[in-house]
């Protein structure tokens, strides 16, 4: 019986093209399976802004590029940032973006409004993941609330921030980072692993110049995400 041939016999060039088209198709499926990730976190952030119908903001911070200073308990290793985050600043709002390491479906976006604090230093509570040896069950991971302060007065080199929680007062210090902002890394409370515990709490912010002179003292409530 004569063998039926449904596809034309291909030469070597044809076979190469067929294989490459097949590879491209399969690669597209794999790419789509991981949520069509883009090459850079900036591009992911811009796509997330578009997806959430936000206008493009000015990127003021890549948290993956900085080291956070903190005054945590002795024996606790320094912060180990595992997630990449971006902080964008708009006219009267800030937008933070968390990139999931494996899938774009895990990416997150959060917004804070500054409409009610015109003229003030802007505060944005971010999240960090740090190592914490205090917890024996899960010593590798703990969420840490890091409050970014933006639009600091000229001459600021150092800041202090105090947050008043129910059980006590938490205080952290920060030098001004290269992006012109301070980042106060508050360790989580032992009874709470929620990294956003600082949101909605009263705070006091003090900013100093190189001579140690107090430039600004600001009190208020740490903004809650919109």
């Amino acid at each position, binding site marked *: 019986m004569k063998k039926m041939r449904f596809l034309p016999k291909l030469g070597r060039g044809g*076979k190469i093209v067929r294989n490459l088209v097949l590879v491209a198709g399969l690669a597209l499926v794999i790419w789509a399976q991981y949520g069509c990730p883009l090459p850079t976190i900036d591009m992911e952030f811009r796509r997330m802004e578009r997806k959430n119908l936000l206008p493009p903001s000015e990127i003021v911070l890549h948290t993956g590029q900085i080291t956070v200073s903190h005054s945590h308990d002795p024996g606790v290793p320094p912060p180990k940032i595992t997630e990449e985050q971006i902080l964008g600043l708009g006219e009267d709002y800030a937008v933070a973006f968390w990139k999931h390491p494996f899938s774009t479906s895990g990416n997150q*976006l959060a917004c804070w409004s500054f409409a009610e604090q015109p003229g003030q230093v802007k505060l944005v509570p971010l999240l960090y993941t740090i190592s914490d040896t205090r917890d024996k069950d899960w010593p590798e991971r703990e969420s840490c609330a890091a409050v970014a302060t933006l639009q600091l007065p000229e001459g600021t080199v150092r800041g202090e921030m105090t947050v008043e929680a129910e059980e006590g007062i938490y205080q952290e210090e920060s030098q001004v980072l290269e992006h012109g902002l301070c980042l106060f890394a508050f360790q989580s409370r032992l009874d709470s692993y929620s990294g956003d515990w600082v949101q909605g709490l009263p705070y006091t912010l003090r900013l100093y110049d190189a001579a140690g002179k107090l430039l600004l003292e600001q009190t208020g409530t740490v903004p809650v995400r919109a």
Partner: protein
Amino acid sequence: MERNYVSEYEWLNAATRGIRFKPDRMAVREELFAHLEDKQADLRRIFPDMTRGEAERRALESMGDPEALGRELAKIHKPWLGYLWVASRWAAVLAALAIAASILLGGTWLEDVRWRVEDWLDNSESAAVSQALYGDGQPQWEGERLAVYAPEAEARLGRCTISVPRAAMWEEQGKNVLYLELRLSYDLPWERSEAPLSYLWAEVDQRNGYGERQGYTSRGHRQMGLRWVSINMMVEDVPRDLEYVTLHYLPGTKLDLRVDLKEVAA
């Protein structure tokens, strides 16, 4: 009587030496060898008395100069095309294996298919909920519809139109609940996203002493089309004579979409 293997072997080597891609070299060698065999067979058929060695010698002579032939063959059989062909085969096999592995190792593939099926099922269920809320469908919950509105509210946000084509007031468990059919229509189908639905919130007419954030719950699941998503936003515990609500979105967008509640039916 012996065959002149050495000269035949050398002739074939000389003719195929210039072909750098090994699979091609072997194939051409086999083909030339078959030609030689055919020529020898022809000669011996025509001249039955011709010895095997003589037939081989004459067949080789008739094939021409192996060096010149080799140069022509080397021009035709470019090595990069051969290597590209092999590489493309391996790439196709590896890509297929990667997909198979991701399916077998419980990647998001099967989960995604399941979600899509569930979405499809939810769509029809949610359409029935919408029909009951604003049309003549049968509600699957306890409550009485008090009014249906045609707000005609619409606003642009990025490459998306936010609209509220229908609304209805219901009385449920002794409280008035306002339902807003919230629809996001995207200019580009691939930009369709349900994420904004969770950030939209309603501010109830402040003259009535409200002004709180509302609308984070919904009746039924969201519905989806090629370029749109919609949800039945619930605004709970509102006055019966409510005149309008205002929809807001994330800071930075300055969305103040006033939804006038023009009654069209009970």
